[in-house]
C-alpha cells in the first residue's frame, strides 16, 4: 500500500513541477495545487496507512497499538488543506486580476514592474 502511494506521490510531484515550469499563470497555479495535494498525501503516508486496526486504546493500556495509524499527521494535513485552499482561492483571483489589468497570462510578458529597457543609472553629471 505504501509503495503504491509513494509512486502516486512521485507522479503528483512530477506533474506539479512540469506544470510550474510553464510560463502561463494558470498552469503554474494548477501545478501549485498538485504540489500541495502531493505534499498532503506525503504527510498522510508518513503517518502509516492502515485500516485494519481501529484507533481505539485497548483496556489496560495507555497508548494506541503500535500498528494503528498515527492521527497527528492527519491533523497536520487538515491544517495544510485549509491553508493551501485559501491561498489557492486568493491566487486564482490575483491571476484573474493580473490577466484583466495586464492583458496577458504569460509571465514572460509581465514586465510592467521590471521593464526590459530600464536605463542604467548615470555614471556622472
Amino acid at each position, binding site marked *: 500500500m505504501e509503495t503504491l502511494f509513494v509512486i502516486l506521490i512521485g507522479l503528483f510531484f512530477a506533474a506539479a513541477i512540469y506544470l510550474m515550469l510553464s510560463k502561463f*499563470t494558470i498552469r503554474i497555479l494548477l501545478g501549485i495545487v498538485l504540489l500541495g495535494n502531493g*505534499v498532503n498525501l506525503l*504527510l498522510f503516508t508518513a503517518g502509516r496507512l492502515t485500516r485494519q486496526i481501529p484507533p481505539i486504546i485497548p483496556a489496560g493500556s495507555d497508548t494506541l497499538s503500535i500498528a494503528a495509524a498515527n492521527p497527528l499527521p492527519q491533523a*497536520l494535513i487538515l491544517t495544510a488543506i485549509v491553508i493551501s485552499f485559501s491561498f489557492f482561492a486568493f*491566487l486564482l483571483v490575483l491571476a484573474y486580476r493580473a490577466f484583466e489589468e495586464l492583458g496577458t497570462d504569460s509571465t514572460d510578458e509581465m514586465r*510592467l*514592474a521590471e521593464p526590459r529597457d530600464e536605463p542604467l543609472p548615470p555614471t556622472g553629471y
Partner: protein
Amino acid sequence: MAAPTSTPVDLSTAMILAPPALGDWLVILPVALMIATGGLLMMIRKSVRLHAVIGLSALALLIVLDAALLWRVWQNGPITMTMGRWLPPFGISFTADIFGASMALASAIVALLASIFALKDISTTGLRHGFVAFLMLMMAGVSGAFLTGDIFNLYVWFEVLLISSFGLLILGSEPRQIEGALKYAILNLIATTLFLISVGYLYAIFGTLNMADIARKEAAIREGAPLVTLTALFVLAFGMKAAAFPVNFWLPASYHTPRITVSALFGGLLTKVGIYALIKVTVMLFPVEREAISLAIAVSAVLTMILGALGALAQNDLRRMIGYVVIVGIGNMLAGVAVGTPVAVGGAILYALHSIVAMTALYLMAGEVFRLSGSWQLSTLGGLWARSPWFAGVSFALMLAASGLPPLSGLWPKVVLLKASLDIGAWWLATAILVSAFIVTIALARVFLLAYWRPAITDDPMTGDPMASAGAVAAADWRTAAPLCLLTALVLFFGLFPEPLLQASQMAADGLADPRAYIRSVFPEAATP
C-alpha cells in the same frame, strides 16, 4: 454511554497542573495582542479614523510587551508556555529565548516607526482596504514565528504572515502591484510548501514537532536517519524565504511595487524571519548536519552577496536598488550560518538585528526622497541637499550604516563575521564580505552624489517644475521626519555603543550552540541532552 469511573484519574501524567507564572504570559501576549487588534480592526473596517489610533497604540503596547519579555528572558533564561496545559511535547509550546525575544523587540520597534511614516504615506483608501489590520496580522505572524517552540506552529505563523503580506502588497491594486504580488505570492507559496515537506519528513523521522524535543533526541537518532537530506531541504525552504541566491529572484521582482511603507516593513522584517528560522533549525537542531552542508551554504552566501551588490550597482530605480542591498545583507547572515561557530552565529544575529532597523530606514528614506522630488529614478533625481539639509544628513548616516562603515551600527556585525570567518581560515568568505560591502558603498555613494549633491534637473529652465528648481528648503513633516530621525538615532547609538547588542547576540548564539537551557525550560524534569 460512558459509565462514570470510580477511580480518580491522575492528570499530572498528561497535563501541567500548576498555573503558569504571571510573567510567563508574556510569551504569548505579543501574538494574542496583535491577533486581537487585527480582528477588531477588521470589524470596524469602515471607521477609518480609529484605525491609526488603535494601530499605533497596539504597536506601542507590543514594544512594551516585547521589551518586558526580553528583560525577563535576559534575567531568567528561556521561558516556556504550553498551550492547553498538555505536557510537552504533546501541547504546542511557545518558548522565548534571547534570540527570539530580541528579534521580536526589534521588529516591533520598526513596525511602530514605519506605521508613523504610514500616516503620511497611506491614503484613506488604503486604510479602508485594511492596511492597519493587515499590518497587525503580519506582526502576529512575525511575533509568532519568533516566539514559537514548535516547528509545525512555525509553519502556521509563516502562512499567517504570508497571507497578510499579500494583502499589504496589493494595497492600491495598481497593475504593477498585481504583477509584483503574483510573482511574490507564487514563489513564496512554493517555499512554504517546501517547508511543509521538510516538516513532514521531520515528523516521520523524529515523531515529534517540538523543537526542544527534537534537539534532545537529535544525537541519538543521528546515525540511522537521513538528517543531512532533511537539513538541506530546510535550508532550501528557508533560503527561499530569506532570499538567498539562487532562489531570491522574487525579491527584486516585487519589493519595489507596493507603497513604500510596505516595502520598508517587508525589507526589514520578512526576509529576517526566514533567516531566523534558518539559524534556529540549522544551528540549534541540526548542528552536525549543518557542518556537512556548510560549504554549499557558504557558496550560496558568497553568490548572494556579490550578485546582490552588483545588482544594486546596476539599478536606476532607488527602490529596486535598496532591494538588492537587502539581499547583500542576507548573504552576510548566511555567511555567519555557514561558518557556524558561536562567534559567527552571534555575528549573523547581530547583522539581522541591525538589518531590521537599517533596511526599513533605507526604504523610508527612499519614500522621503520621493515625497520631496517626485521621482524614484536616479537619472532624474537631484538637488535634495538644497531642498532639505537635515534629510541629507540623515540619509548620509543611513547609507553609511547600510554599507557597514563606522561609526554606524553596520560596522560591528561585519567585523564579527570577518573575524569569525578568518578564525576558521575561510579567507575567501571574508574577501566576499569586504568586496560586497565595497560595491554597496559605491552604489550608495552614487545615490548620494546624484540625488543629493547634483543640482536639481529641470527639463526647461523657464517652465520647469517650481518645486524642484526653486531650491527652496522643503518643510519637514513630523510623520516622515520622526521615524527617520529615530531610526537613524538607533543605528547611530548602536554604532557608538555596540556593547549591549554584541553581548545580547553572543548570548543568543551561545544559547543556540548549547540548547540545554532551552530544553530545560520546556522539559524541566529531564535536562539530559
